[in-house]
Structures are given as structure tokens and as C-alpha cells.
């Protein structure tokens, strides 16, 4: 029997888990490391821990709000900059310049302005997520072939018809690429802000479990967050692939 790459991959993952389990049991300091079996036990405990569940729910809510806000603001902004040659030439470089600023440096400003509760996380996630959307929308509008617009116009389409029937459908694939990138940035922004300071969010619990030397709980919480991140990223990736299919 010949093994496929998928089976070998699962084998590699299982091997790593076994090495982790054995290595920690033999050599690990239980204050700092937990074997996977204990992490699973902690994970089951975590599900019954209402405050932690609430914190996870808050974080999810922050992620989604920031993401939706970024789309609601970013799409029109991208269109406003991208549709006109002049605004594109003058404002797009400013957007790229701002995008290149390392936002971690201004995180304390967000906390000062919005407090240590969810609003600052939403604002920070939003400020991360909006840039990929604006940039890809501008790029998407730019990529519409001029011939298509000219021919639509010569067939008597008015401005709004051209926008809704030519420009918008052509922009959709890159818009979905932007949404995928925005989700990645959104996760980074919200989690960074959560870890920086948090009252009752996941950042509070990561700190609590670290400081009370409960690595199993910490691993379990991180695993849940990683799972949330993977699900959100994967959803965006699937949507992207679906929406760009009509194109080719």
C-alpha cells in the first residue's frame, strides 16, 4: 500500500504530538510546559468555564465588528479613490504611505483614546483591516480593461450602468482577496490589542494563566483562538475562491 501526501502529513502531525507528549513528560518543567494530553483535559475544562467563554465571545465580536466596519468604510473609500484618475494619482500614494506605518507603535494611542474595553480592540482591528480593502479595491477598479468601458459606453450605457455592470463585477475578485487579507490583519490587530491590555477579554486570561503558571490552560486557550483564526481565514479564502471563479 502506498501512502498519499495527506496521510503522511497526518502522520507527521501525530509524530510531533507524540514527541511533545513524551519529551515533556520526561524532561519538561510542569510550570512551563504541558503535554498535549493535559491540554486536551484543560480544553474540556475551558468549555465549562463561563468567564472564559464570555471572553472568547467578546473577542469574536470584536473581530467581526472591526471587519464589518472596515468593509463598510473601506469599500466606498476605495471606490472614491480608485474610480477617478485624479484621486487615484493623488490619494493612493498617501494610503500606501499610511499602510507602511507599523501600527504596533500607535497601539497605546488607541488605548488612551478608546479605553481598555472592546472599543479600542475594534478600533485597532479596524485600522489594520481597512488598508488591504482600500488597496485591493483601488487595484481592482484599475484592472478593468478600458476597452470594456469604452465599448459599454459606445453601446449607450450611462455612468451608473457602467459602474454596476462593468466595473463592479470586475472588481469583485480583488475585493474578496482584500477581504481575506483584511481578516488576517484584523486578527493581528485585535489579538495584539487584547494581549496588550484587557479587562475581561482573552488577553486577560492569557495573562492570568501565564502568571499563575497554568500552561495547560494557556495552551488550551491559545488552541481555541488559533482554531477561531483558522476558521475565519478559511471562510474568507473559500469565499475568495468562489467569487473569483466566474472570471476565468
Amino acid at each position, binding site marked *: 500500500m502506498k501512502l498519499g*501526501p495527506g496521510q*503522511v*502529513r497526518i502522520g*507527521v*502531525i501525530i509524530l510531533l504530538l507524540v514527541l511533545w507528549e513524551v519529551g515533556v513528560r520526561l524532561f519538561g518543567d510542569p510550570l*512551563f*510546559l504541558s503535554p498535549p494530553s493535559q491540554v486536551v483535559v484543560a480544553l474540556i475544562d475551558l468549555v465549562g468555564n463561563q468567564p472564559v467563554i464570555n471572553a472568547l465571545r467578546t473577542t469574536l465580536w470584536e473581530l467581526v465588528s472591526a471587519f464589518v466596519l472596515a468593509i463598510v468604510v473601506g469599500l466606498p473609500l476605495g471606490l472614491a479613490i480608485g474610480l477617478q484618475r*485624479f484621486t487615484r*494619482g*493623488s*490619494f493612493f*500614494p*498617501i494610503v500606501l504611505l499610511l499602510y*507602511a*506605518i*507599523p501600527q*504596533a*507603535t*500607535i*497601539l*497605546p*494611542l488607541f*488605548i*488612551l*483614546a478608546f479605553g481598555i474595553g472592546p472599543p479600542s480592540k475594534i478600533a485597532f482591528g479596524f485600522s489594520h483591516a481597512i488598508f488591504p480593502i482600500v488597496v485591493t479595491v483601488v487595484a481592482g477598479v484599475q484592472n478593468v480593461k478600458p476597452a470594456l468601458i469604452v465599448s459599454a459606453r459606445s453601446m449607450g450605457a450611462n455612468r451608473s450602468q457602467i459602474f454596476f455592470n462593468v466595473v463592479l463585477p470586475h472588481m469583485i475578485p480583488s475585493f474578496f482577496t482584500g477581504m481575506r487579507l483584511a481578516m*488576517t490583519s484584523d*486578527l*493581528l490587530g485585535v*489579538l*495584539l490589542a487584547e*494581549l*496588550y491590555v484587557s479587562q475581561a477579554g482573552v488577553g486577560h486570561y*492569557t*495573562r492570568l*494563566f*501565564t502568571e499563575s*503558571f497554568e*500552561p495547560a490552560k*494557556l*495552551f488550551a486557550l*491559545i488552541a481555541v*483562538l*488559533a482554531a477561531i*483564526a*483558522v476558521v475565519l*481565514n*478559511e471562510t474568507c479564502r473559500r469565499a475568495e475562491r468562489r467569487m473569483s471563479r466566474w472570471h476565468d
Partner: protein
Amino acid sequence: MSGERLAYRLVQVGFIALILLAWYLATRNGLVNPILLPSLTSSWHEFVLLIESGSYWPDLEVTMYELAVAFSIAATFGCVIGYIVSRTRFSVRVFDPLFAGMYSVPAILLFPLYVLFFGLGPGSKIAIGATIAFFPVVLNTIAGFDYVDRAYIVSARSMGASAPQMFWSVMLPAAFPVVITGLRMGFILAFLSILGSETIASLAGLGHRIVSYAESMDPAKMFAYIFLAIIMAFVLNAVVSLAEARVKRGPG
């Protein structure tokens, strides 16, 4: 065209001037809480003072040290592991999706663990920077070596190239541009994640200084360090982009 260019520049300069003017007016008349936004003049003053006194140096040194070590680790492991994986089609199909999947997990989540393992000092920042930078390097190394045109390999082999000749004269030059892009992405990601992790929990570094001035309610000094960090980001970005373009162009 040049007239249009000029108009673009005018709008850009005007836009930035407008923001600076708004900042100046808003803080001068006490419309905005000075803790939140210090006056433009005092921030600038602090920035000049910071540069002249050179007191930024210890923190900059810490951050740059962390970046250098983290990037070296990520580049070494990323290139070596990537090259080994790329040796056979089968191992590419096993490991490439594995690394890509791990890359989609926000690695900053590991930071609390790293603080637990490596403490509050540079160790945890080096670990997070190396982890985050590893993935673009390894993925691009795999992609670079995996997509070398088969025709090159076949023709080099038919002309009797030895294994080292094959590596140095065929594989490496063909894969190089993609690998270099991975290294550039890794370098920038390492810098950003080190700044971010210094913000979360640290003892020294640019990110640490920004946060400590924020917490001691000294916003003008905080802004001076923010300016410095942003300038560093632009400088590093420009340097690695230039290096990438130069290396890709090749010696001749």
C-alpha cells in the same frame, strides 16, 4: 503628464499640510486632551531633543539586536528546511500545506507562551520574530526550488553537470529571486512583530519605550519615539527592498 504629476504632488503636500495644521490648531486651543494628543510643536521639540541627545540609542540597539538574531534564525532554518523539503515532489506535497496552514494562525498568539518560556527580556521577542519570519522564508524557499524549470535541470544533467554544479549553477540562480522575496517579507514581519511584542510585554526596546511613556502620561516623548520607530520602519523597508532589487538584477 508632468503637469498631472505636479497636481498629484500638490494634493499630497496639501493633504499632509492640512493634517499637520489640524493637529496644530486642535492642540493649541485645548480642543483635544493633551494626554491624548500632545501639541505638534512639543512633540517635534522632543523628537529633536531625542535625536540630538542620542538617548534613543540603548533602546534602538535592543530592538535591532532582537531583529538581527530573530532574522538570522528564521533565515537559516527557513532556507535549510525549505531546501530539504523541496528535494522531492512528495515531501513538497506533504509539508507545503502544513507550513501554509500554520502560517494562517496568527503567531502573535504564541507570545504569552514565549514570555513564559523565555522571560520578559529579548529572548521572547527573538522567539516571536523568528517564528513569524520563518514561514515566508520556508514557503518561498520551497516554492523557489520546486518551480525551477524542468528543462534547465534536464539539459544541465544531459550536459553532465555534477551535483554541486547543479546546485550552484542551475538550482540556486533559478530559485534565488523567489527566496530573496521570502527573506525580505520575513525581515519586515520580524521587525513588525518585535515592535508589537515589545509593546505587549518587555523590559527595553523602541516598543517598550513608547508604552512606558504612554503609561507615564508623557505623550510628547511618546510621539518622539513613535516618529523614530516609523522612520526606522521606512528606512529598513527601503534598505531591504533596494537590496532585493539589486540582488535580483544580478551581477551582470
